[in-house]
């Protein structure tokens, strides 16, 4: 039914390594000291799972993920010597709260991290209704806004072919700064590398200082124009100008960081078409490495990685048994109960595990970066048949002691908004007891800590 797991995963590692030579070496934090407070990473894969092959065997801390199951890589060993499953919380029984004039994919994708209904707008949704964007911010952005403003990037959004088939639409944006304020993920690892690392200059280099001064003068003028315009436009438009101004301020904040430099950075040689279907796995590997590097180098504390889109039609052409017809496409498969869905979801499970391993490979204080991170992997649906009970959520990491990982927890039937509240608590926002306009007010998930 499937190719040997080990060889497939070895291949993926090989592909990633050929494109980006690790490691990134933190300059400021090379001693391995704990960099105060947990980090958050949100992950997404599409079109539901195959519950029978996702659900671990056993309960609580006594569970296994048998060979062939979607989460089989949880039996792997981490760099620190622990098993992956000792550092995860498999969350069963979570129900996605849904709302708004939209279809279940759209509703689920919006609710997943925002706990909000879809707003009316200009995209077609179920029943021919006109869906818009999310009705409120996503949990990562609320957390990002609460953190130390001197962190170079409030948050970083990584995508893997995250515009494919949709462009800038509700199916392709999972993070929101607020209602109707989607955040675009960077789907090009080369552009992300450029943004994060390539502009770093040597503070002793006068050319770098000259470039900073130029950028500062440009920003001063642009901010002047934005401020002037904000006073002239209609109230509804002023929000757009204010958001623009805020974004420019963030750029300005980083001008100095460009000089200081936080990491020694390897070179990344470009060349592949990041939008080509068959390069998906390579792009995913690059983005994963860049995400870990950004955390490791202290560039951000909040990140997300979006694999494809809601309703993804990706073809997993590197897995066995895939051609290039309609029936080979992910969303079509998900409606057909295609047996290859297990392979598809296992591939994502392997990617999740690879990320955990990379985080665990970074020593930090008495443990590793994984101990100080909370990784949450979600989906817009439970299954391809648009069911939304038992959406496959998995948490990885220790969240700096907040979480008590190493367990399979079946909650029966609880709202995803409670998971969102738990994420807020894990990241220090313990005063928040609800999140999103679909929240029923029951507080965080019990028994996570």
């Amino acid at each position: 039914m499937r190719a040997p797991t080990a060889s497939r995963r070895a291949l993926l590692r090989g592909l990633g390594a050929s494109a980006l030579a690790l490691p990134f070496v933190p300059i400021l934090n090379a001693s391995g000291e704990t960099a105060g407070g947990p980090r958050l990473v949100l992950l997404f894969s599409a079109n539901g799972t195959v519950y029978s092959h996702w659900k671990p065997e056993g309960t609580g801390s006594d569970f296994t993920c048998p060979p062939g199951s979607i989460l089989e890589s949880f039996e792997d060993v981490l760099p620190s010597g622990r098993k992956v499953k000792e550092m995860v919380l498999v969350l069963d029984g979570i129900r996605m709260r849904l709302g708004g004039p939209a279809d279940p994919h759209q509703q689920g994708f919006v609710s997943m991290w925002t706990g909000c209904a879809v707003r009316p707008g200009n995209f077609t949704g179920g029943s021919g209704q006109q869906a818009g964007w999310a009705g409120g911010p996503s949990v990562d952005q609320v957390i990002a806004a609460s953190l130390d403003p001197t962190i170079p990037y409030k948050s970083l959004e990584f995508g893997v072919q995250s515009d494919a088939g949709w462009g800038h639409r509700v199916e392709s944006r999972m993070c929101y700064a607020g209602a109707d304020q989607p955040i675009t993920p960077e789907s090009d690892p080369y552009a992300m590398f450029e943004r994060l690392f390539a502009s770093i200059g040597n503070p002793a280099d006068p050319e770098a200082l000259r470039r900073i001064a130029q950028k500062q003068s440009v920003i001063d003028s642009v901010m002047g124009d934005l401020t002037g315009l904000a006073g002239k436009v209609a109230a509804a438009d002023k929000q757009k100008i204010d958001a623009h101004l805020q974004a420019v301020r963030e750029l300005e904040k980083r001008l100095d960081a460009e000089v200081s430099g936080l990491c020694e950075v390897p070179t990344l040689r470009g060349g592949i078409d990041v939008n080509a279907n068959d390069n998906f796995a390579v792009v995913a590997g690059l983005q994963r490495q860049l995400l870990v590097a950004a955390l490791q180098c202290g560039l951000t504390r909040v990140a997300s990685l979006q694999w494809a889109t809601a309703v993804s039609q990706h073809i997993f052409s590197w897995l066995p048994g895939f051609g290039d017809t309609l029936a080979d496409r992910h969303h079509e498969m998900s409606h057909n109960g295609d047996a290859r869905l297990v392979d598809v979801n296992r591939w994502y499970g392997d990617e999740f595990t690879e990320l955990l391993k990379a985080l665990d490979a970074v020593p930090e204080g008495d443990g590793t970066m994984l101990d100080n991170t909370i990784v949450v992997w979600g989906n817009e649906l439970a299954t391809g048949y648009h069911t939304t009970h038992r959406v496959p959520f998995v948490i990885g990491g220790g969240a700096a002691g907040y979480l008590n990982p190493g367990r399979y927890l079946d909650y029966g039937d609880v709202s995803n908004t409670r998971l969102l509240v738990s994420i807020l608590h894990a990241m220090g926002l313990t005063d928040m007891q609800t999140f999103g306009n679909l929240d029923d007010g029951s507080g965080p998930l019990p028994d996570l800590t």
Partner: protein
Amino acid sequence: MNRVGIGTVSSAMGIIPTTSGWRGGGSAYGLSGRLVLATACSLVIGCYHGLDQPPAAGDANDSSGGGTQGEASEEGETGVSACEGSPELLAAAPLRRLSGEQYANTVVDLLLLDSPPVFDLPSDEQVGGFYSNSVAPVDELTVTKYVTASEQAAAAAALDGLRPCPADVADETACAEAFVDSFGRRAYRRPLAADERTRLLQVYDANRADSTFDEALRLVIQTALQSPNFLYMVEIGTDEVTPGVRALGAYELATRLSYFLWNSMPDDRLLDLADSGALDADQLAAEARRLLDDDRARRAIGSFHLQWLELSRLELLEKSQQRFPEYSPAMRDAMRAETVAFVDHVVRHGDGSLATLLTAEFSFPPAALWGLYGIDGTAVPEGDPVPLPPGQRAGLLTQAAVLAVHAHPDETSIVRRGKLLRENLLCQVVPPPPPVVDNTPPTPEPGESARDALERHRDDPACSGCHILMDELGVGLEHYDAIGRHRTEDETGVAIDASGTIAASDVNGPYVGAVELAARLASSERVHHCAVDHWFQFAHGRAIDRASDACRLDELYGGFTSSDQNIAELLVAIVQTDAFRQLRRD
């Protein structure tokens, strides 16, 4: 919306009059990909008990429970005067940020380039079926990309054509000031305010010491390209026409006009007219004609049609290499080029008629498509229309771009093609199927055509009620495979039957094949009005607000009829409406 399939035949049909001409454009796998048949029809939640009593032919206001045209007609009877007089009759016009296309076109025109640098800008929002960044604000990534793009553009700028002095001028300061005035006016599409001028000059001053003269000027260009006055089509308005309604400023009007008809910035003449206050309604019409005569209009005409028919998806369109080894990026680019050349020719150089767009037996296929069309265009002079095989093709709908986009990677899609015609040509939205269905297209049994399999698949009237709205149009295009090649047999080797029966329209009744189907659609008043709706939305970058816009649309419908559906005349009429010239400011 009727969700339980009870009630009258008409309401149960579930056609939703679109207020925004919805399209899944930009979506390779949009809802159209999911609009497939339900095998578990007992689980259908909101669809519709079929068309066992189809409305009579010619009934334009059938079945849709308040169709777009019906509402418009009622409004229209109140006369022209009803179009003006209160702010409620003018829809709000949100601040628009340039689309990616507009950005690239504007950079070319502003900086005197031959072609734009390859920009990496985020995807555009779609509003009213067309790219229009008018709801979601920019995020940090977008602004970061604007910075990079401005650096690219400034580095590429043809400075010798922009600098109002030689590079080695003695009085650099005076030259820099003159540059800021002349360049700034073109970049912001209006003269600079004093503080804006000061800020741009400060960029020059701050950097001149550490940069060359030209480098400092290029930094001014960078700055202007990052300014909101460049990135947004800012509309503040001037005097109140009626309470809550302002006339657009002359420069704002010039900008609306040029982005509508050129998809780019105004030229010097248009700015000069704005400056002299001469851009009144009559002059506006004359300018609209001048802009349409200019080759820059090809960008807007092409862009409109690519978006209307959802052909932007062509850019990344993949086909099964097993099934279509001849399909290549070059062929894909040729498909796009053909359609752009064709629509540009018909609208700007041909008879301008919608009917020609929908029925022409000629086109402008690049050589890469000759094999696909079964023609040899060698004898046709470059730029002349190429006759297509008689009886095989009819205008846009049988062009390879349309047929390839609205098909699956490996086979045709009767449903998708039918959905395109129903939604984008007839402006009626068919609800998606209920979620819990097996949406795999039916596999034909030996000796069975795709069409027959589809018909067998939708035996249950609860399915067919919705599906015949699409399928009975889509079957008309079955003579063309998934890359648009004409064929007489389908994927399974069965002879094509491209006959269908149009229902729920004003051109109901049986037809045979694409040529007759296209002619029928070309004669449909619904289709005429739908084209007007789409152009109106393209012009304004917003969805139609039926309550506010109905009256103006009705005027435009009437004018479109009088001109025998002449597109160019429609565009001139659109710019003369008060909706185009005024601004609601609550």
